[in-house]
Every structure is written in structure tokens, then in C-alpha cells.
């Protein structure tokens, strides 16, 4: 019978103590591992999502808020930027591509985002590549078409202003009239179409050729459905593990055409509440000097800011890192307490096991075999606890990842990585180290004394 078999048999002899000490180790390891896994995986996933563009152009204000809102669909839009910012950007040297975004509507809690077809043709997700379709394909709506339609929108706004003046502020009739003109125009061009993310498809049941009506507001069930903007699903995206999975993309023209998205007499043109503006623009720049130049150009504007999403997410995780560090310290303390528990549990059996060790010694076991036996028992409990903890952590991360994906769209993998395996080895080594205390007592067992005492 080899040492591992002896170790396992000895652990089986004390099922309750073995189970309790294993569970206590697993709790500490699970907590430590889950905190680390969540942090690492979310940081990685957040960085991946942030890497879809180099710059994010949006309204002045908090850079982090802009990043979270535009890329992760967290919180409300801070405001709009004037449409010409987008037109200027496209003419700026060093801009490879740009995708405008207009937000404000949702469908069953999923954000509806007005974009151009550059999103499908040019945007690349790190480690994934260009967007691919599980079903159907993208819609066709170019930047030039958006420019033309936007000109129509502005023209309608001017007509509205004239109507308002002529009809002594009988705004409601004129409002509806112009909205419907735009809606008709969008319908004629076939722009009431949508491409949905994989999560939207799985959670809402929408599929190719399904129709839906976006609702005003960004919160689930928060607004009236726009029945005039019934849109047809023409494409379902493959899962990217980013917030794109939780978005519904429509042509930006459709968004402008939806009732209530046009100017009223309260509208403030050119400012953050400009109804003809854009919520944000994703920009990919050429590397190096051009990147800085584009950024600097936007920075000089009074009506917009350019932020680097990757940097903003890095800053966010620096803040989160402090909390995470504290949590990991607590978890490490739990692990140490648990290992002390293993030490005490095994040490307490030493008195009763002196005869067992004496018998083994009489059968030819060396002192160091006895030392190894007890140390290995402690290490085995730590290893089992560690593995169990990793499983618990995996389950925890899986549950938490659903919540995180619910909020941010970021998909986190619960699978252990190399760091987890290194941690498991460290825990096992620490367990073996803890086992050395009782093992030292076992090592000193004088076989002859314990055997003869019963004679």
C-alpha cells in the first residue's frame, strides 16, 4: 500500500473532521479565487469591450460616465453633441473610421442605438474581429445617407419653428405632422429595420424577420412604445462577449424619425439637449501622432470631448483594485484561519494515533515516512479544499457573470486559469507546511514505548 493510498484511507477514517476542514479551506479559497477571478476576468472583458474604438467622442462631462454609457449602456446619456462634430471628424486626417450613436429608446430593457452601417463593416472587437451574423445580415445605411437625412431633420425643425410661429404656439399638431413626414421618409427608404445582439435574441425571443416597437426611455418598461416605428429584425449578431450582445442597432435615420425625437419649441440647438445631435461617436484613429492630433482637435472644442475608453476603464479598475485588494486580504485571512483549523484538527488526533504510528514504525516505516504521511494528509485536505473552493468560485463567478452581463453586457469566463492553478499549488504547499506541526509530533513517536505500553 503506497503513501497516497494510506493518506486517503486515513482521511476516510475521519469523515466528519475531513469534510469540515475541507469545507473551511474551500470557503477561503473560493472567496479568494472568486474575488480574483471576477476582478481579472472583468478587467480583461471590460478592456476588450473598451478596445472596440480608440476614442469616444461625446458631450463634455465625466469621461468615465461617457465611456460607461456609450460602450456599456450603464446610466443615462450625459447629453448630445452637435451633428457637425461627426461631419468634421470624418474629414479629419488620422481618423480611420467613425460610427455615430444616438440613444434614448429601448426594447424590453435593451438599448436601441441608432448607427450607420460602418458599425458592421469597420468595427472590430479585440480577439473576435469584425461583427459576424448568426442569422441574416446588416442593414445598409451609410454616413452620406445619414448626412442627407440629418439635413431633412434640420429642415423639418426649421419648418416646425415656422409653424410654431404661424400658429401661435399650437405646437402639438405641427409636431405630429412633421414627425410623420420623417417617419414616412424613413419607412419609404426601408430604415425601420434592426440588427440585434445575441443576448437580445436569446432573452426577448426576437429572431430574423420578427418585428418590435422601440419604447421611449432607456429603462425596461419605462416608456410608451413607438407604434409608428415598428422595426423588422434583419440580422442577429454572433455573440461577442461584449455589451454589443445586449444592443439593438437601427439606422440612425430611423431613430431621428421616431415620434418625439424631433425638435420642439423647447429644444436647444447646438447644445447638450440638441435633438439633432448625436449621443456619442466611436472613432478609430491611426496610431501614434495622428491619434494625439485627433484627440487634441476634439479637446479644443467647447461642445465635445474625446476620451480614450481603455484608459478610462484602466482608471476604473485602479479604483476598484483597492476594494478588490481588501477583499482578497480578507479571503487570505479566511484561508489562513482554515489552514490553522486543519493543523489543529490533525494535531488533536495525534495523541490517539501514536499507536498507529508505532505499528507502522514496527512494520518498517521510517520516521520520515510518518512525517510525510501526516504532512500529506494536511496537504491533501488543503488540495481538496482548494479544488472544492475553485469549483465554488467557478459557480459563484458563473452566477455573478450573469449579473455582470445583465448590467454591462460583459461576458466573464468562470474557467480557472494558470494563476488559479498556481494558487492551488500554493494552498497545498501551505497546507503541507501547516501539517508539519502535527507531523513533527508524529515523527518523534517512540514506537517501542507505545507498543509495549499495551503489553
Amino acid at each position, binding site marked *: 500500500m503506497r503513501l497516497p493510498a494510506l493518506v486517503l484511507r486515513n482521511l476516510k477514517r475521519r469523515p466528519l473532521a475531513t469534510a469540515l476542514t475541507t469545507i473551511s479551506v474551500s470557503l477561503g479559497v473560493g472567496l479568494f479565487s472568486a474575488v480574483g477571478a471576477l476582478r481579472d476576468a472583468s478587467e480583461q472583458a471590460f478592456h476588450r469591450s473598451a478596445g472596440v474604438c480608440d476614442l469616444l467622442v461625446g458631450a463634455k462631462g465625466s469621461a468615465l460616465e461617457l465611456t460607461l454609457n456609450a460602450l456599456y449602456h450603464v446610466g443615462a446619456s450625459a447629453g448630445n453633441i452637435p451633428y457637425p462634430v461627426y461631419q468634421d471628424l470624418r474629414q479629419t486626417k488620422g481618423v480611420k473610421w467613425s460610427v455615430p450613436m444616438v440613444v434614448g429608446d429601448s426594447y424590453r430593457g435593451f438599448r436601441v442605438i441608432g448607427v450607420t452601417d460602418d458599425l458592421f463593416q469597420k468595427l472590430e472587437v479585440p480577439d473576435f474581429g469584425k461583427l459576424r451574423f448568426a442569422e441574416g445580415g446588416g442593414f445598409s445605411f451609410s454616413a452620406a445617407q445619414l448626412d442627407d437625412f440629418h439635413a431633412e431633420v434640420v429642415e423639418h425643425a426649421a419648418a416646425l419653428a415656422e409653424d410654431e410661429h404661424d400658429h401661435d404656439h399650437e405646437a402639438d399638431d405641427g409636431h405630429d405632422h412633421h414627425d410623420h413626414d420623417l417617419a414616412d421618409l424613413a419607412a419609404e427608404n426601408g430604415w425601420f429595420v434592426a440588427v440585434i445582439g445575441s443576448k437580445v435574441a436569446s432573452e426577448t425571443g426576437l429572431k430574423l424577420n420578427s418585428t418590435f416597437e422601440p419604447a421611449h426611455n432607456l429603462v425596461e418598461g419605462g416608456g410608451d412604445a413607438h407604434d409608428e416605428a415598428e422595426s423588422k429584425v434583419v440580422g442577429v449578431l454572433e455573440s461577442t462577449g461584449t455589451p454589443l450582445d445586449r444592443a439593438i442597432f437601427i439606422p440612425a435615420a430611423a431613430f431621428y424619425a421616431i415620434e418625439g425625437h424631433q425638435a420642439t419649441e423647447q429644444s436647444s440647438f447646438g447644445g447638450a439637449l440638441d435633438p439633432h445631435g448625436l449621443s456619442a461617436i466611436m472613432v478609430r484613429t491611426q496610431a501614434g501622432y495622428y491619434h494625439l492630433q485627433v484627440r487634441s482637435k476634439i479637446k479644443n472644442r467647447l461642445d465635445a470631448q474625446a476620451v480614450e475608453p481603455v484608459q478610462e476603464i484602466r482608471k476604473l479598475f485602479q479604483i476598484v483594485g483597492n476594494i478588490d485588494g481588501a477583499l482578497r486580504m480578507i479571503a487570505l485571512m479566511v484561508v489562513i484561519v482554515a489552514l490553522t483549523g486543519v493543523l489543529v484538527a490533525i494535531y488533536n488526533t495525534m495523541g490517539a494515533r501514536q499507536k498507529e504510528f508505532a505499528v507502522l514504525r514496527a512494520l518498517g516505516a521510517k520516521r520520515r515516512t510518518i512525517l510525510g504521511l501526516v504532512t500529506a494528509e494536511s496537504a491533501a485536505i488543503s488540495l481538496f479544499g482548494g479544488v472544492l473552493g475553485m469549483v465554488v468560485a467557478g459557480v459563484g463567478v458563473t452566477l455573478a457573470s450573469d449579473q455582470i452581463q445583465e448590467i454591462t453586457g460583459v461576458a466573464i469566463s468562470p474557467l480557472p486559469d494558470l494563476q488559479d492553478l498556481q494558487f492551488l499549488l500554493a494552498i497545498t504547499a501551505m497546507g503541507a507546511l501547516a501539517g508539519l506541526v502535527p507531523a513533527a509530533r508524529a515523527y518523534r513517536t517512540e514506537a*517501542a514505548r507505545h507498543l509495549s505500553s*499495551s503489553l
Partner: protein
Amino acid sequence: MIRLQNVHKSYRKNGLVTPVLDVPELEIPVAQRVALVGRSGSGKTTLLNLLSGLVKADSGLVQVDDEDLTTMSEAACDRFRARSVGYMFQSFHLLDGFTAVENVELGASFAGRSGPRKEAEQLLVALELGERLHHFPGELSIGQQARVALARALIGSPKLVLADEPTGALDGETANTILDLLLKKSLEQGVTLVVATHDLEVAAAFDRIVRVEDLQ
């Protein structure tokens, strides 16, 4: 051949030295079956422990098959015990969490040989415990436990089998059965058998009786 010359052993406790054994001369030929008799505290168990290398003599020579146990390192003594000695204890000391066959297997586990499981099974079958291979000690009668302990002492074909009051915990009939088995098996395997007992009737069954007090 076992040879002891001018062996002295004493124990120290709290600074007090208590002599327990003096053996000026003792020789036991190979395959001889010897009963060590003597009153309690006469040093029978100490003599067995000296022969197994579990304890070292303070002085003198303890030689088993040309191996001098008094000059051996502890690790070498362990190796010697694992390869060359079978040990049977009075209360058998079977390990609770291990089945009968595993307890027997343990007897050969530290000799570095492979395949002791099969030998353990064969030994137990020969001792009429074929039906009890996978029973735990608590599930065996005292007589069956004694057989398991005997099998554990015989596994690996040791040169020397030591037994300390092997029948002390058994009733008359079972004691006789175990004693017969011990003598028969040691004869079959050609091992040297040294048994400590206070029972002169048991001692009478052996090739030779050594009164420990008379050695001194």
C-alpha cells in the same frame, strides 16, 4: 543466526537510570523456534525490540544474519525491519480504518516490493479468512483478528518473526489454534521465530525455551 554478546540496555526517566536487560551471550540458529519466558518486567519485550532494531542496546553486540544492529543507523534499522522482520503484537494492533487484507498488505508496504496485495490475499486464504478479506477489524472476531495479525507478520517471507504474547488476549481454544498456526507457518517458511510469553504451556510447544532471567 541471531547472536547477542554482552548486551546491556537500560532506560532513563527523569534522570533515573533503570537497567532492564543484560544478556552476556545468546545465540539462536536459523529457523529455530524460541520461546522467551520470564516474569513481567524481566526484559522479554525489550529483547524483542532489540532484535527488531526498534531500540538500540546501550552496549554490546546484536547481530542478525551478520547484520550488526547496534552499529546500524536508524534508517538502516527501519529498512532491516521492513525487509527481514515480521512482528505480531499481543493485542494485534490492527489498524481500524483498514480492511483485513489491507492490514496484511501494510506488513510488506515498507519493504519496497511490488504486489503485496496478492500475497496478502493468499496468506489470509491459507489462514481460512478468504471470506473476510475486506472486513474491517471491528467486524472480525478476536480469533480472526489474531490470524490477520499473524498473516501481517508472515507476509514478505521475513527471516525473523517476533511475537509478543501472541496468545495473551485469546481464550484457550483460540490460543491453541493461533499457536499451532504460528508454529506451523514459521516451520513451513523456515523462519526464525522468537516469541515472548509468560505461559509455560505455550513455551513448551517451541523448539527451545529461553528464560530471560537466566541469561543475566
